[in-house]
């Protein structure tokens, strides 16, 4: 019986070739679009997470226990002391670390270099030029000049910020900041390099200066607001974070150790929402497909009402008739799902290799993604399998209602149907 039903369903699909093809194509296009959108979202998320670790948070960050809650104020008084000793201890346990001081400042622009006097608030990151690139990945992002050297009054700036204020290598700026203890200090700094990073946040706002220079100016010698630790991509940050307090011991300072996930929790929450929005897209795609299949099945059932009546008169059980139509609908879904998955996968090869350049959008707007321009796709077997299965299963489900309605009709009425 099953063989008969399968054979009849296949023959009926071929009987209405054009209708089968049109409905399958509609499903295929919908699924392919979903695969493409989902691939881009997954790819952008993966790239963003990588760029967050490479340019913003590192894998694990050590801070003063009270720093995180006041982090927006960037208080220099809430710092880590004996930084070099702590970095040495971490190094002994195979952990590469670098100190950073983050502080807010007014950047004063001078008319000699910028054409007119002006100032703007900035967030400055003081880094150790000797060790920073072993934790963060700025080495290949330099597009002009060079990196600042230790002990110098040199500054490296993000490319978009430099464009916005028309800054060039060789220009001088002054940074006015409140030092450790509350005093104000002005630092004259020469721009020696401009970086263009895959992370738009960096390009938009980065001001990077040597930590030892800032240490002298702001009374932060051998002090830091954070120590950033690099871990291999395969390492478990939670495991490292739980190990670090033991390595650093119970000093007089209470320290907090946070993983990149905790540090970028706001971004991850946004991404979580966007994954949900991709589910809404999937739902909409299937809603459109469902309307298409439902319409096709209603037409098929309407045209074959007499045939259906004959089968019922000859004693074919209603559930078997329903199964017949559901197999037909599933066949359309299967064709659509195969074509859609193939189409989406072919498009995805291009997306994974080349991506799409959304640089013009990212320059003007901050969408939260840490990807500067080219959005690349990513392969997700789970996503492909879910999309494929959902295409087939939902196609079968939507055939249920019109078939149910047809078999609830009186047999004589079915046989009289014109």
């Amino acid at each position, binding site marked *: *019986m099953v063989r*008969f039903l399968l*054979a*009849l369903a296949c*023959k*009926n699909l*071929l*009987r209405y070739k054009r209708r089968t093809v049109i409905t399958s194509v509609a499903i295929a296009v919908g699924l392919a679009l979903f695969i493409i959108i989902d691939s881009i979202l997954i790819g952008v998320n993966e790239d963003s997470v990588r760029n967050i670790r490479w340019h913003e948070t590192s894998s694990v960050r050590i801070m003063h226990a009270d720093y995180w809650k006041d982090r927006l104020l960037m208080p220099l008084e809430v710092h880590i002391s004996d930084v070099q000793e702590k970095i040495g201890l971490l190094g002994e346990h195979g952990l590469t670390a670098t100190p950073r001081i983050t502080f807010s400042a007014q950047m004063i622009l001078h008319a000699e270099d910028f054409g007119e006097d002006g100032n703007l608030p900035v967030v400055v990151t003081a880094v150790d030029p000797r060790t920073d690139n072993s934790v963060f990945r700025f080495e290949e992002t330099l597009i002009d000049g060079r990196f600042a050297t230790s002990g110098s009054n040199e500054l490296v700036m993000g490319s978009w910020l430099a464009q916005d204020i028309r800054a060039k290598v060789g220009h001088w700026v002054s940074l006015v900041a409140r030092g450790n203890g509350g005093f104000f200090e002005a630092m004259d700094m020469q721009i020696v390099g401009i970086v263009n990073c895959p992370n738009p946040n960096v390009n938009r706002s980065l001001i990077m200066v040597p930590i030892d220079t800032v240490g002298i100016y702001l009374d932060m010698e051998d002090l830091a607001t954070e120590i950033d630790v690099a871990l291999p991509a395969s390492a478990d940050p939670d495991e490292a974070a739980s190990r670090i307090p033991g390595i650093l011991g119970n000093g007089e300072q209470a320290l907090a150790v946070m993983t990149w996930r905790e540090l970028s929790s706001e971004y991850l929450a946004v991404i979580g929402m966007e994954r949900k929005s991709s589910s809404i897209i999937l739902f909409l795609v299937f809603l459109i497909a469902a309307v298409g299949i439902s319409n096709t099945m209603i037409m098929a059932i309407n045209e074959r009402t*007499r*045939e259906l*009546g*004959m089968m*019922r*008169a*000859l*004693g*074919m*059980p*209603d559930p*078997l008739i329903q199964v017949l139509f559901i197999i037909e609908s599933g066949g359309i879904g299967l064709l659509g799902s195969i074509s859609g998955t193939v189409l989406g996968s072919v498009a995805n090869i291009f997306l994974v290799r080349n991506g799409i350049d959304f640089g013009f959008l990212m320059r003007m707007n901050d969408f939260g993604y840490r990807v500067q321009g080219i959005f690349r796709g990513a392969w997700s077997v789970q996503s492909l399998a879910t999309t494929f299965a959902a295409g087939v299963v939902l196609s079968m489900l939507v055939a249920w209602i019109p078939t149910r309605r047809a078999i609830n009709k*009186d*047999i*004589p009425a079915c*046989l009289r149907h014109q």
Partner: protein
Amino acid sequence: MIQVQDVVRNYKAGETVVKALKGVSLEIADGEFLSIAGPSGSGKTTLLNLIGCIDSLDGGEITIDGVPVSRMDKHAKTEFRRNNLGFIFQTYNLIPVLSAYENVSFVLSILNVPEREIKERTMMILQEVGLTGMEDRRPDRLSGGQQQRIAIARALVKNPKIVLADEPTANLDSKTGEEILRLMQEMNRKYHTTFIFSTHDRMVMDYARRLVSLHDGQVTGDERREA
């Protein structure tokens, strides 16, 4: 034995109630070749549908071999039809995507008959109705008469007790119609299957061994003849 007792069937047509059958009573013995005759709207098809368990009555009772089929629920009726009844329709109602062989054999598939037996029985009945060599043809490549032969084969392949035919020759020319009637007669004699067919065609009535006349939902005549 089919017993139809005081059968009433009403239909609603908007606000109006149409009385299709007004207390019809009949007894049909096994192996009869019976025609229900009457003009359009006399209730022929309604009576056939009720005996065929594809419609529900509003009064009276129908029993087949002592089984009160009119009291059965939907599922029991389906099972009864599957095991005991064959149908021949005016418009053949063949499945256009299936071959002649498949149109006949699917009835046995529903009954879960083993594959080998399905083949034997289908080939035999197609031979009986004169369609040897046309097993692989689809209905659209067969004449009206040949299509109705498939329908007869389909009705008979499961060896039903009763075959119900609603105006089986109405869509055929008179010569082909006669061929079909002779075939039905032959099958009736050979298998001792009860044939009940409706018609308003005088030529068709002449083939019946018993002629029941209906008019306005009532039996107006019941005539037995020699074949």
